[in-house]
C-alpha cells in the first residue's frame, strides 16, 4: 500500500490521469464506431513522427539546462537542410539523408552559438531560450522570403521568389522511412517499420552516448555542477555539447517529421512544434532536470495517443471538436505541473 502511494507520488497524478484517460479512450473507441486498427496505426505513425523531436530534449535536461524551449533553432536547421535537399533535386533516400547532411553544419553552428549564449545566462535558460527561439524564427521568416531559392516546387508561383509556406515533398522523399519494410495488415493498419527502426536507432545512439565518458560527465553536470567541477569536468563545455546535440537532433527530428507528414512547413511553423515535444517528455515522467529514454518513448506514445484519440472518440461522443482545447490544457498543464513541482533537495 505504501509502495503504491510512493509510486503515485513519484509518478505524479497528472500522468496517471492521462494514462487512464488514454486507456479509456481506446476501450471506448469501438463502441462509438472508431476503428481500433486504424487508430493504432495512426498513433504509431504519429509516435514515429514526433519521437526524435522529443528525444532531442534529453541531453539538455540531463546537462541541467532545463527544457529546451529553443528547440526551434534545431528545427530551423532541419528546414534549411530539407529545402536545400529539394533545391538540389535530391530524391529518395538520397534526398532524405541529403537533407540531414545539409542540415548538419547549420545545426552544429547554431547549437554551438546557442550553447555559448545559454552558458552566459545560467539560471534564466528557459525564458531566454524561448525568446531566442521566437526571434530567430522571425529572422528566418525574412530569410525564407529573401534567400535565393528558385526550385519551382518551393517558390511562390506568381512572384517567382520567396518560399511557400508549405512545400510538398511528394515527388522527393515522402514517407521514405514510413514505407521502408512497412507491414500492411488489412485495409486500415500499416506498421511503419522503417520509421520506427530509425527512431529506435536514434534512441539507441542516445542511450550509448549517455553511457559514454562524455555522457556520464554530462549527467553529472546536470545532477550537481559543483561535483562535476571538483572532478575536473568543465560544466560549460558539457552544457555546450548537450545544446549542440539537442539542436542537431531537432534538425533530424523535423526532417523525419516532414517525410512522414509530406510537407515542409516554413515561416512561423517551427515555434508551435516545441511545446508539444516538451509536454510529451514531461508526460513520460521526466522532470526539468532528469530524463531517460523511457520517458521519451512512453511520453511520446501517451501524448500522441491522446492527440489522435481525443478528436475521433470525443467527437463521436459529444458531437463536437474539443480536441484543440484538450490539447492546450493537457500540454500546458503538464509543463506547468513540472515547473511548479517542488524540486527535490539536491543541495
Amino acid at each position, binding site marked *: 500500500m505504501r509502495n503504491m502511494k510512493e509510486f503515485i507520488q513519484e509518478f505524479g497524478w497528472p500522468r496517471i490521469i492521462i494514462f487512464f484517460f488514454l486507456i479509456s479512450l481506446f476501450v471506448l473507441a469501438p463502441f462509438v464506431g472508431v476503428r481500433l486498427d486504424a487508430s493504432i496505426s495512426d498513433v504509431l505513425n504519429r509516435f514515429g513522427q514526433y519521437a526524435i523531436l522529443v528525444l532531442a530534449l534529453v541531453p539538455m535536461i540531463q546537462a541541467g539546462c532545463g527544457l529546451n524551449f529553443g528547440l526551434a533553432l534545431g528545427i530551423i536547421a532541419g528546414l534549411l537542410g530539407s529545402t536545400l535537399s529539394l533545391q538540389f533535386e535530391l530524391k529518395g533516400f538520397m534526398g532524405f539523408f541529403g537533407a540531414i547532411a545539409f542540415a548538419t553544419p547549420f545545426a552544429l553552428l547554431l547549437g554551438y552559438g546557442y550553447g555559448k549564449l545559454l552558458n552566459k545566462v545560467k539560471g534564466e535558460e528557459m525564458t531566454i531560450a524561448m525568446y531566442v527561439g*521566437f526571434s530567430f524564427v*522571425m529572422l528566418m521568416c525574412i530569410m525564407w522570403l529573401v534567400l535565393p531559392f528558385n526550385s519551382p516546387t518551393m517558390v511562390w508561383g506568381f512572384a517567382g521568389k520567396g518560399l511557400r509556406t508549405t512545400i510538398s515533398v511528394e515527388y522527393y522523399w515522402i514517407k521514405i522511412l514510413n514505407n521502408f519494410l512497412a507491414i500492411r495488415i488489412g485495409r486500415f493498419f500499416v506498421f511503419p517499420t522503417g520509421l520506427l527502426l530509425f527512431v529506435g536507432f536514434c534512441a539507441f545512439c542516445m542511450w550509448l552516448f549517455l553511457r559514454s565518458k562524455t555522457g556520464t560527465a554530462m549527467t553529472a553536470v546536470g545532477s550537481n555542477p559543483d561535483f562535476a567541477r571538483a572532478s575536473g569536468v568543465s560544466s560549460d563545455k558539457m552544457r555546450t555539447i548537450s545544446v549542440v546535440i539537442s539542436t542537431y537532433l531537432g534538425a533530424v527530428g523535423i526532417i523525419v517529421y516532414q517525410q512522414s507528414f509530406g510537407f515542409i512547413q516554413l515561416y*512561423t511553423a517551427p*515555434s*508551435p512544434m516545441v*511545446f508539444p515535444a516538451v509536454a510529451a517528455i514531461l508526460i513520460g515522467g521526466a522532470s526539468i532536470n532528469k530524463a531517460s529514454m523511457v520517458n521519451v518513448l512512453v511520453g511520446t506514445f501517451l501524448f500522441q495517443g491522446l492527440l489522435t484519440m481525443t478528436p475521433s472518440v470525443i467527437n463521436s461522443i459529444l458531437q463536437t*471538436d474539443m480536441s*484543440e482545447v484538450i490539447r*492546450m490544457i493537457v500540454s500546458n498543464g503538464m509543463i506547468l505541473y513540472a515547473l511548479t513541482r517542488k524540486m527535490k533537495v539536491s543541495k
Partner: protein
Amino acid sequence: MKAAGSRKRTIVVRSCLGAFYVAILVIMLLTGKRHTILIDNKAAEDASYEAVDGMSVQIDSLKSSEFYPGDRDKVVVSGQRHKVKVEIFNSGKVEERSFVLPLGQDMLILSVPKMLAGKEPWFGPFTLQQEQRTSTETTVEGGEMSFGGEVVDTAPVKP
C-alpha cells in the same frame, strides 16, 4: 475595545463597497443598455389611422430626421426613459411624448401615426429573425500556440 470597533467599521465599509459594486453594475446596465428604436410611419392595416405626410421626428436630443408615408428609420438609444418630438410639416403642429422602454427589449418599433391617433400601444417589441447575422461563421482557428501578431493591428483606427 478599539480594535473591535475598527473591525466593525471595516466590515461596514466593506459591505457598503459590495453594495456599491452591485449598485454601479445595475446603474451601468440601466443607463448603458442600448435599445434600437424603429420609427415607423405607416398606415394601419385596418386603416384606423393614416401615415403622416411629411414630418420630422426627434428622439431625445439626437438628430431629427424627416419622414414621409411608408418610411421607417432606426435610432439607437441608451437607457429606458426617452422623449419623442414630432413636428408635422403641414400643420406645423408639434407633439412631444415621453415613454419608458422595457429593459429586456433590444429592438422596439414606434409607430408615429398610431401615437398621433392616440391609440395604445404605440410602441412595442419588434422581433427580427436573426437579421443581424453578418459576420463570417468559423470555428476556432487551429494552432492556438502559434504566436506572431498577424491579427493585432489589422483594424484601422479612425480618428
